């Protein structure tokens, strides 16, 4: 097929040790990635969804799915894969949720001839999946002593087993295709000790630091006794119109990319913030030299590293071999560490244990505060063996991560405090009887679903609303990236490159079908709970559901709303995504149609959550979001567009809190816009039938959950 698809999906039943396949075309309507996974998930679990309150349910299904653009030249898109299933992180219900990771795995899977993998059941003994082109084998972990290895050692063990120990550059015949050869090592996604020990904070790791972090999918792998999936492929991906694809990539470079000879800003992050972005240009403006760089990528002895096909190279490999490929919050576990080396070793340890970095950063903050308050420590109300006297040292980090990732003390003794850590701070607080009080004060900054706050819902409205209406911290920086450009300018004491009125005009023009609403991007206090705000949140759900979660455009580079290299500073979003998509698939998808497909996917997800038990009353923030004002700060200040006195301006929103009745009003507006029941939040049959999902309406009807 010359349309980007491999054409078949693997189905692995771990309980029966059965490997079957089905054609991707069965789900042709659902494109790939998240949408395709959600549709398969619904089909496989619809009869038990109403009792799936947590990812530990034995009939939970985990799905890894590529998109038709995977393995092609589409920039900041081709190397990513979606992970979907019921999670174990969110609270009170483990929602149907998702993660995503980059690197080589997605491309290798396509090269082996598979669009995705569906994993069901539980193995009797620990196994790993060995995919070599069309030859797919479930192997016992025992033969390689794989169970018990950390997330890096297990990958090295599998590399040696599948590809031998020869040097890079030598041909490998993995043996799954006639005349198939490659110089690559297999791509392996694996769990570490935390997954094996079924910790809710466990994630999946691939290569050095590609992680599917949220959801606790590492624990699901562990529970299913699936240690790793290895894939090596020697094929390729056939695209519909290779010339059109290359032309699109050259067009992007010509019209929307930086030129070193003509940087448009003295601020390097602004100057290169439009795709493509070479990570090597990132640096710490305050760093005076090695050892003095905190919280940012060291600028010495590095080269950029990228997911397959990506021009951005947003991460790095270092000559020291420490902290490789880490480019996000995993570098921030120990900003107070004794040295940069400790910070980078801490990052590596997080990867080896395969722990959710965002969760561990917040957990460490929380328990340190309790320790400082005299509440946690040896003999304290929360009796903890964790010694804080060497906080900031590598030894401290090692003890912390060992306990969180194994539920045991360093000597191997099971320990209740370590067990609490392995659940994450939210559930630990509940065990310690502190949850309600600490959520009220904000001492436990977990704003929604038992998940740490990322951007503050009191100021970054679309982020907070998107999260409570969904299943996880959305981690979608679309609008945040635009307002951040103004925040950077403010930080530097300069005027923004694009004034607020122009930025709002440009961004709004890319938001069909709501591009006619002049107030959709107003973050002012007067617009927090309105129908305009509901449209902003809805559009964001639709765009990301389709282009990021389903087609796999990388959140770190897309969308391109404002671009200082474009002649009128209007970025390529709306033009670029369909152009790449159509070149690969041979379809003729318009931008507006893509947003409508996003609405369909969003409605399917919402129906699944409803079947799991979601009701309007669940959809709320933690108390501190309503009761405690957002912290005011100097230094770097986040700005937002606000329409006041007939003018658009960038303003901070410090000191703001949300109003409970106001949020209820927002929910009513949002449900009305969606065509859901305003009292319950349940989807209506008419809405689902309009979206061509009558079978979903039937299932909801069977369980009394149609609106």
């Amino acid at each position: 097929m010359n349309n980007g698809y491999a054409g078949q999906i693997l189905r692995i039943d771990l309980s029966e040790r059965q490997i079957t396949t089905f054609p991707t075309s069965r789900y042709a309507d659902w494109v790939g990635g998240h949408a395709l996974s959600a549709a398969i998930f619904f089909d496989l679990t619809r009869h038990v969804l109403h009792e799936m309150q947590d990812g530990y349910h034995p009939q939970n299904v985990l799905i890894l799915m590529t998109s038709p653009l995977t393995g092609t030249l589409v920039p900041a898109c081709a190397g990513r894969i979606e992970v979907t299933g019921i999670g174990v992180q969110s609270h009170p219900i483990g929602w149907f949720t998702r993660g995503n990771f980059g690197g080589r795995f997605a491309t290798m899977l396509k090269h082996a001839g598979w669009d995705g993998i569906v994993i069901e059941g539980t193995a009797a003994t620990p196994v790993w999946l060995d995919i070599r082109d069309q030859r797919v084998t479930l192997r016992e972990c025992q033969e390689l002593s794989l169970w018990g290895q950390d997330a890096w050692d297990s990958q090295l063990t599998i590399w040696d087993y599948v590809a031998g120990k020869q040097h890079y550059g030598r041909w490998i015949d993995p043996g799954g295709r006639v005349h198939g050869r490659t110089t690559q090592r297999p791509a392996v996604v694996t769990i570490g000790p935390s997954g094996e020990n079924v910790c809710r904070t466990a994630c999946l790791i691939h290569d050095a630091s590609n992680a599917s972090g949220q959801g606790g999918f590492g624990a699901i792998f562990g529970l299913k006794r699936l240690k790793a999936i290895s894939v090596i492929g020697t094929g390729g991906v056939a695209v519909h119109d290779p010339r059109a694809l290359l032309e699109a990539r050259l067009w992007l470079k010509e019209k929307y990319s930086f030129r070193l000879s003509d940087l448009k800003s003295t601020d390097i992050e602004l100057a290169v913030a439009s795709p493509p972005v070479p990570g090597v240009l990132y640096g710490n403006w305050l760093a005076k030299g090695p050892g003095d760089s905190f919280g940012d990528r060291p600028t010495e002895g590095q080269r950029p590293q990228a997911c397959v096909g990506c021009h951005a190279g947003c991460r790095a490999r270092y000559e020291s071999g420490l902290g490789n490929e880490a480019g996000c919050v995993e570098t921030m576990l120990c900003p107070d560490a004794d040295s940069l080396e400790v910070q980078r070793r801490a990052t590596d340890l997080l990867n080896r244990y395969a722990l959710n970095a965002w969760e561990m950063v917040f957990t460490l903050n929380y328990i340190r505060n309790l320790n400082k308050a005299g509440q946690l420590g040896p003999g304290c109300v929360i009796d903890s063996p964790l010694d804080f006297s060497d906080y900031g040292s590598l030894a401290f980090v090692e003890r912390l991560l060992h306990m969180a990732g194994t539920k045991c003390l360093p000597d191997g003794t099971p320990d209740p405090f370590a067990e609490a850590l392995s659940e994450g701070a939210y559930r630990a607080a509940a065990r310690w009887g502190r949850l309600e009080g600490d959520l009220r004060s904000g001492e436990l900054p977990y704003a929604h679903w038992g998940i740490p706050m990322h951007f503050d819902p009191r100021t970054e409205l679309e982020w907070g609303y998107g999260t409570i209406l969904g299943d996880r911290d959305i981690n979608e920086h679309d609008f945040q990236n635009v307002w951040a450009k103004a925040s950077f300018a403010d930080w530097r004491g300069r005027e923004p490159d694009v004034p607020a009125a122009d930025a709002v005009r440009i961004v709004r023009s890319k938001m069909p079908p709501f591009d006619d609403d002049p107030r959709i991007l107003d973050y002012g206090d007067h617009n927090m709970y309105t129908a305009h705000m509901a449209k902003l949140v809805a559009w964001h759900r639709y765009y990301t559901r389709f282009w990021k979660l389903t087609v796999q455009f990388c959140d770190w580079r897309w969308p391109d709303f404002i671009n200082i290299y474009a002649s009128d500073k209007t970025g390529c979003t709306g033009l670029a995504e369909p152009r790449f998509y159509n070149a690969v698939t041979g379809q003729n998808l318009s931008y507006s149609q893509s947003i409508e497909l996003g609405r369909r996917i969003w409605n399917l997800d919402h129906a699944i959550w409803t079947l799991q038990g979601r009701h309007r009353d669940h959809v709320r923030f933690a108390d501190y979001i309503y009761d405690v004002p957002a912290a005011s700060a100097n230094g770097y200040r986040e700005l937002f567009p606000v329409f006041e006195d007939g003018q658009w301006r960038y303003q901070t929103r410090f000191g703001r809190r949300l109003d409970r009745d106001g949020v209820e009003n927002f929910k009513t507006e949002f449900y009305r816009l969606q065509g859901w029941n305003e009292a319950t939040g349940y989807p209506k049959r008419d809405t689902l039938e309009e979206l061509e999902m009558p079978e979903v309406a039937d299932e909801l009807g069977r369980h009394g959950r149609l609106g």
Partner: protein
Amino acid sequence: MTELTEPDLALAARLLADVPHHQRLVAHRKRQRWGSIPAYLYSFGEVVRLLQDKQPALSWPALEHWLRHALRDVELADRVAEIMAQVSCEQGKTMQIRVLLERRLSQCRALAPS
């Protein structure tokens, strides 16, 4: 920038010690893509380290108050207040306050190297 007077041993000891929980400063480390990570600061050294971050976010009035009342370093608090009043750009303020606090930290460490 005029040099800071040498701190006495008592002041140096206060600046090098941790403050109790109720006197901690709450700040943030900000990134365009990471978002906002709370930083709970229990010592003068931790404040300096925060200011060495790429994009720190900390209330200057809170810092000045903390220096004046929690650490009782009146001279340093006055100098921070001067910078707050004189420098308009936030990055410039951050850099100047950072340099000032780094100097004070070096003075204290030289006095009480342990």
